[in-house]
């Protein structure tokens, strides 16, 4: 293991143009992510916390190239991946994966679980036979705590927590090294939230995964993360270890987030 971080982000900017009029002229821009830099070490979890509109989701999307960054650099194991063409980026799709917030909309309602999870295998392991794929999907389901008999069911037959498990199985199918967890527990009951957080931690231990864990709830982020980034209005206002954030918050905004966590 070298000292090169798995992910390194330098001066990342994502601006969205505001257009107006018939000719769609650019009349302004929204600075969703405004000059953000951070690193993620292999096997670690970096938490990214902030309110809706803070730009935290945009960072996640930019990392997996669902959004083109306006400026800045993203390095994967020291290699710059910011300006690769779609084709050049393809190998990285196998290494970088994402888990979404909304378990109800993140699975195609017309496909069976076997098809949803198997799609990744179809793309990245084209030589697998149908049977091999099926058994691999069954293994993945077992890994996330589902049963092989769930293979031929449709998403609507599952609860929110189970769907999130299916989403995790899909992300794991390509054997990624890095997973962007985009508010994976925000839409779930607290009790289910605990199960999913535990599952993510177990998988990290077993497979040596690296996470960027995005959430608005500092309590969850503090629990799962080694290092925490606090984001407000497109900028990172505080970056420190999880303990440091809790014991010695520096920024007012961090204090506000801490204060908002319910005390029991």
């Amino acid at each position, binding site marked *: 293991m070298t000292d090169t971080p798995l992910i390194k982000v330098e001066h990342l900017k994502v601006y969205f143009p505001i257009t107006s009029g018939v000719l769609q002229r650019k009349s302004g821009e929204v600075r969703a992510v405004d000059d953000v830099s951070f690193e993620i070490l292999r096997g670690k979890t970096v938490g990214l916390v902030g309110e809706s509109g803070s730009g935290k989701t945009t960072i996640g999307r930019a990392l997996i190239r669902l959004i083109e960054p306006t400026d800045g650099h993203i390095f994967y194991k020291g290699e710059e991946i910011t300006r690769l063409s779609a084709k050049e980026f393809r190998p990285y799709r196998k290494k970088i994966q994402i888990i*979404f*917030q909304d378990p109800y909309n993140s699975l195609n*309602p*017309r496909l069976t679980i076997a098809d949803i999870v198997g799609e990744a295998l179809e793309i*990245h392991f084209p030589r697998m036979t149908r049977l091999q794929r099926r058994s691999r999907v069954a293994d993945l389901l077992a890994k996330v705590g589902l049963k092989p008999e769930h293979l031929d069911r449709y998403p609507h037959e599952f609860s929110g927590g189970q769907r999130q498990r299916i989403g995790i199985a899909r992300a794991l199918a390509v054997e990624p090294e890095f997973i962007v967890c985009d508010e994976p527990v925000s839409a779930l009951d607290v009790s289910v939230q605990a199960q999913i957080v535990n599952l993510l931690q177990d998988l990290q231990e077993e497979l040596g995964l690296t996470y960027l864990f995005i959430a608005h709830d500092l309590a969850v982020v503090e629990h799962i993360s080694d290092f925490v980034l606090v984001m407000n209005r497109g900028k990172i206002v505080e970056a420190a270890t999880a303990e440091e954030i809790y014991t010695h918050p520096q920024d007012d905004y961090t204090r506000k987030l801490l204060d908002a966590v319910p005390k029991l």
Partner: protein
Amino acid sequence: MTSNLFRQILQRPTGVLCAALLAVLYLIAIFAAVISPYAPSDQNLAKTYHPPTGLVWHDGRLCVRVYKLVDPTEALYRAEPDRLAPVHFWAKSAPYKLWGFIPMEHRLFGVDSAERIYLLGSDSTGRDVFSRLLYGSQVSLSIGLIGIFITTVIGVTVGGLSGYFGGPLDNVTMRLTELLMAVPDLYLIIALRAALSAYFDSGQIFLLIVGILSFIGWSGTARVIRGLTLSLRNRPFIHAAEALGQTPFVILWKHLFPNLLGYLIVTSTLSIPGYILGEAALSFLGIGIQEPSTSWGLMLSQAQDMKVFMLNFWWLLTPGLAIFVTVILFNALGDVLRDIVDPKLKTQV
């Protein structure tokens, strides 16, 4: 999804009834040549405006009455009391080709060639209305299916691509659809029809009409599909497929299309009547199907003649009844389909 839809239709009485009746209509259209006793252009100038022939049971077999022309000026026929012509089943007839390539010499039923069987009377040149109705159904029933197929293919392709890729492509295609929607369609049809008809025979004219109707029709479908695609496009499951490195066309085909299918089936079923009525209207105006081919609209246009009303040749209006029934069946089936698909449509689109 499709087999599931079919099963759900079967669970609803209206659905079963409409689907079954439509299936019968289409079977009749497919086998029109065998079922009808005469070719559509088979004239008999001695028996114009002949009323429907009576059927009687005589000596253990089915017979038709034979009529005598009493007054040629009013086309008044009277049945002759003693003369009957036996109906033959699988009767020998003039050779013809089923579907244009299977040589046949028999029809389902017929009478000896000296007499005629007119189940629904005859028209101004003594052609059998029943036979023409069956042959005409081939045009009238297929025009909707072909038209819908073309508009759906173009509409889904254009709407899906522009909704998915957005940007300049979207801009161009949407302006194009707006342009097409602004074209006054009736004038366009009349103009195109007039300009091109000299170069085509009647079969090609049929295709021309379908082409014109669907050329104008796809823009509406394209716009709706674009809207649905736009809303589906931002659903996380599409992002998930992109994050896996799936290619845009597979995403369109595998993730978007199945989610549009429910909507497409319903709207297609509900817009088929539009094509049937469109053809009928064009043929009625004399700019659609032309003699000697036949279609329901064309047959109706022949019933415009004052004589039909003055002398009560009601059988010439049966194509109107056929159009009416078909349109009602499609609309009712579309309603049933919408009931089945709608709850899902609400939550998923």
